[in-house]
């Protein structure tokens, strides 16, 4: 048995706390009898000021400091209440509205009021570790995602048909004429690389073959339409900018989640909003963009959940002339009421900076995507694992999240943010295919302010998503059997839908119209520092600074 020291282990056995050196110091308040190391500070004025004169500070001598009526600071709600969240969000939105894109993105990355560089750096380090939104990938192999995606994007599925009035611009005779011209090239494209489809008809066996097949059919179809239609009939075709194998990303916040232990990093602590980052890389095969938006399918007003909440429909007066083609409510699959936490479905949070990519980087004048053609590379694997039916349902879910993600991202480029609500609906179209089966979707984004409680925000987004349709049955003896004209009609209708903005509609109310590009010489557009020249990559790691060789 070892003897322990009597002193040092515990200074005093009767004390529970270990006394520290600070306890031995004198009290902060110096007593008169105590000595100090330095001379205490005395205000020299104390001894020299003439106490007989007073300092005049009156209305007559300083009139600029007084007003006729008293002005009080704004009354702020009590902190950490829903009213306070609304108040601060609106205030932040007002601060944010006129800022260039770079600063808007920085705003969502850093806390707003950090003036000090070092403080911001510290906060940044902290956020890099603890600020983790849920990562939502484009086409995951998870069952029955549609209701969850509907909730996260606040989307109602209007119908399993495309809106007929919206695509009534193309007459039957004209459509038939186009189909007669494109049928042969499409057949040729199916046959040209049809070794895969010739060998097998039903089961999807190989990912790579399926993807190549689907991509070549997509390219052949859009190209055939390009060649078939007369140049003067569709002048917008050559104005479309086309992206090849591009990527999309969008960040937003969704309300309606409770504060729980597991949501420590994924919930915004102020308003209890779920942070979500949609990331799509490698699936979007072709994306077409134009300078003008597609016309709205239905007026924004008609997509209300509860019309009584909205005060007055002022903003849509320009759009009220659009044909109203609301489906009967019975077919509408509304936004589900219960919230779905992504973690319960296998989604994980990841260290992402919030970033927005609508298929291109800032600077391109064609900012409205009209049509995306997507080949999910992992379709065969998902169909293998979940079954074909679930894989097809996943396509519908992808149409929802892809459409919404693209709307949010391009709204960001247009000057809106999740704190600056859309002023007009943004419509985009998506096509999903594995080469043989095609899903068509038209998405109308009415609201991106999903951080608001549903009771405060009457708007919802709308989606029209078709059931999967087979372009052909199979290939037999070098012949395509059962080429489905309906599928071709859908492709033609969506591809040829011309963008047009309503007259007098300000597309960029927060930042103003971009100046037309007169030359590409030293014109950076609206922001001095373009955001894609940022120092960090999407995962928050720093890029290497560029050093010239010369």
């Amino acid at each position, binding site marked *: 048995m070892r003897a322990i020291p009597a002193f040092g282990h515990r200074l005093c056995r009767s004390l529970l706390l270990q006394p520290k050196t600070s306890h031995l110091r004198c009290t902060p308040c110096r007593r008169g009898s105590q000595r100090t190391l330095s001379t205490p500070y005395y205000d020299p004025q104390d001894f020299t000021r003439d106490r007989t004169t007073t300092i005049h500070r009156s209305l007559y001598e300083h009139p600029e400091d007084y007003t006729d009526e008293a002005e009080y600071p704004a009354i702020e709600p009590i902190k950490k209440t829903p009213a306070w969240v609304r108040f601060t969000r609106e205030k932040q939105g007002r601060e944010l509205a006129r800022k260039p894109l770079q600063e808007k993105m920085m705003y969502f990355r850093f806390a707003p009021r950090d003036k000090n560089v070092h403080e911001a750096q510290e906060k940044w380090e902290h956020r890099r570790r603890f600020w983790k939104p849920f990562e939502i990938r484009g086409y995951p192999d998870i069952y029955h995602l549609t209701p969850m995606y509907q909730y996260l994007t606040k989307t109602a599925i209007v119908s399993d048909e495309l809106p007929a009035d919206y695509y009534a611009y193309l007459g039957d005779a004209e459509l038939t004429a186009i189909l007669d011209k494109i049928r042969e*090239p499409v057949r*040729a494209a199916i046959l*040209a690389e049809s070794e895969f489809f010739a060998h097998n008809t039903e089961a999807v066996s190989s990912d790579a073959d399926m993807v190549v097949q689907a991509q070549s059919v997509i390219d052949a179809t859009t190209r055939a339409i390009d060649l078939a239609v*007369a140049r003067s009939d569709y002048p917008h075709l050559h104005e479309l900018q086309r992206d*090849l194998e591009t*990527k999309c990303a969008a960040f937003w916040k969704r309300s309606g989640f409770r504060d729980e232990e597991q949501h420590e990093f994924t919930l915004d602590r102020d308003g209890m909003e779920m942070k979500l980052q949609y990331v799509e890389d490698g699936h979007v095969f072709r994306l077409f963009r134009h300078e003008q938006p597609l016309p709205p399918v239905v007026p924004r007003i008609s997509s209300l959940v509860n019309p009584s909440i909205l005060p007055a429909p002022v903003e849509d007066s320009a759009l009220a002339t659009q044909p109203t083609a609301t489906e009967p409510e019975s077919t509408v699959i509304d936004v589900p009421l219960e919230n779905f936490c992504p973690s319960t479905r296998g989604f994980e949070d990841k260290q992402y900076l919030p970033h927005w990519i609508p298929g291109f980087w800032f600077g*391109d004048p064609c900012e409205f995507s009209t049509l995306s053609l997507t080949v999910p590379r992992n379709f065969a694997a998902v169909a293998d694992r979940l079954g074909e039916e679930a894989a097809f349902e996943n396509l519908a879910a992808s149409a929802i999240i892809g459409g919404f993600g693209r709307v949010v991202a391009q709204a960001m480029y247009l000057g809106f943010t999740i704190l600056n609500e859309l002023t007009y609906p943004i419509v985009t179209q998506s096509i999903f295919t594995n080469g043989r089966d095609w899903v068509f979707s038209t998405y109308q984004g009415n609201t991106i302010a999903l951080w608001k409680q549903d009771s405060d925000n009457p708007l919802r987004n709308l989606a029209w998503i078709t059931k999967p349709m087979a372009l052909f049955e199979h290939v037999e003896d070098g012949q395509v059997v059962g080429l489905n004209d309906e599928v071709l009609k859908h492709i033609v209708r969506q591809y040829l839908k011309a963008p047009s903005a309503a007259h007098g509609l300000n597309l960029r109310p927060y930042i103003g119209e971009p100046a037309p590009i007169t030359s590409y010489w*030293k014109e950076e557009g609206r922001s001095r520092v373009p955001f894609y020249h940022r120092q960090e990559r999407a995962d928050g790691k720093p890029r290497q600074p560029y*050093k010239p060789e010369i």
Partner: protein
Amino acid sequence: MVHFSGVLRTRHRAVYHYKRQWRLLVEKQKLGGPIVPQAYLDAGVKIINAAAEQKELENAIEGHFDWKPDHPMFRPAVGDGPENPRYNEIPARIFRRGTQLAEGLEQAQVLTKTVVVKGVPPVWEYAANQIKSLRFEDEDERGRRCVMQSVRWDPSDLELPKRVMKYGHLYPKYWGITLQKANDLICQNLLRLTELTFSGNPQILTRHLAKNALVNVTYEPARPTDSRIVFNCNNALMLTDTQQLPAFFTPEQVNLTKETKLPSLYPLKPTLNLDEVQVYDWETAYPFLEGFKHAMPHTIFVQHNSAEEWTLAQKQSKALIHSHATLAALARRLYGADVGVLPRPLSIQCVLADRGRHFTFYAYQLNTLDMADQEGVKNQAWVDTDSSTAVVDDVIVTTDLPYTLFSLADQMEGLMGYQMYTEKQSVQRYPIRLLNTYNPAVMEKLLTLYATHLHLGHHHQQQQPQGQRPADGLNPPPLTEKHVARRAVA
């Protein structure tokens, strides 16, 4: 009196001693094998060494079930040896992706037995006049946007090749738009713009576009001392039609090639820089199945995406060999594997897209596949390049240059990537790279090549001068004196 409450620590707890004893026992067994209590031995209990059993099970587990799924991860890597299904006993010299012919165009001429003529074939001159009224008013703007997309607006964030590789030094990596991606964007989007210019024309509905069209052509050695030659070419884009292209040279001009000499590479062999391999395909491969209607080649796009520096002639050799191989594979299909001089020449047009920036154009005509003999009828090609003229010491020097689609404004032209800023303050250190010049000639050439074999006058209600239009696709208008003179010089 001493308080023991603070004293009773680790070594006074019973758990410590149990753990210690157990550890001692384990270590003892490790050294001397399992210690079986005497009571068990007395009772006659059968002792099984669990560790040995486990070892046996693990060794035999392959026999119980196949745990390796059919996945490339678990397949043994296929080497270049006899185990490779594409292995051949006889080695061959192969021209494949990345093969750089040191002697450039001349070497390609010898390899493909081709006579090269600098300039533009007459059909292109004719077509160039035809397309003038067709061009979009905003064509330049669209082209500029395609360029900006390929250098700037595309969001791809791929790893770029390192510019400096030095042993023992770590140089930074850059991410951005790779040369391959930029080239794809330029080629495909400019081709789309070209096709939209002609849209509505019923003649172009028969044209088919294939991507990554792979061609494989093989040649037996001419002499026993020579080696097999394989051309393995990947055409990035291949535009095909139902009908063959008209010939670019008249039969008289084809006959004239008998008297033309091919360039001499002596003392070098023409197979210089062709890799000697034993893993190759000895079958002729054409990208389309037999019986496919749209299999006649019209124009191929050959891409050059190498980050290394090649001379113009070396890039041109690539285009020449790609054109030749594509036609040769077709000729073997049409006329049989052992065809010599073709009964009817085959033609193809070629666009060489060098990193999406520099373009050169070719019109190739395959007259013969008799490659063993360097004499007799030869193949022919028009090579269309831009040129610059300079006066050096009172001598006019003309240099061939590719058509440059665009140039960028600052010094960092070579890198497709980001401009970076200082880390401390977000003030840009280098000027942002932007488009300086845009050359509409490239788009004009693409339109011209696309218009070959199209009869535009009738469809677009254009008045065309009589006598210029070819009566038949097979008989292009005769060469002018200028062309003959050029050819003679070449």
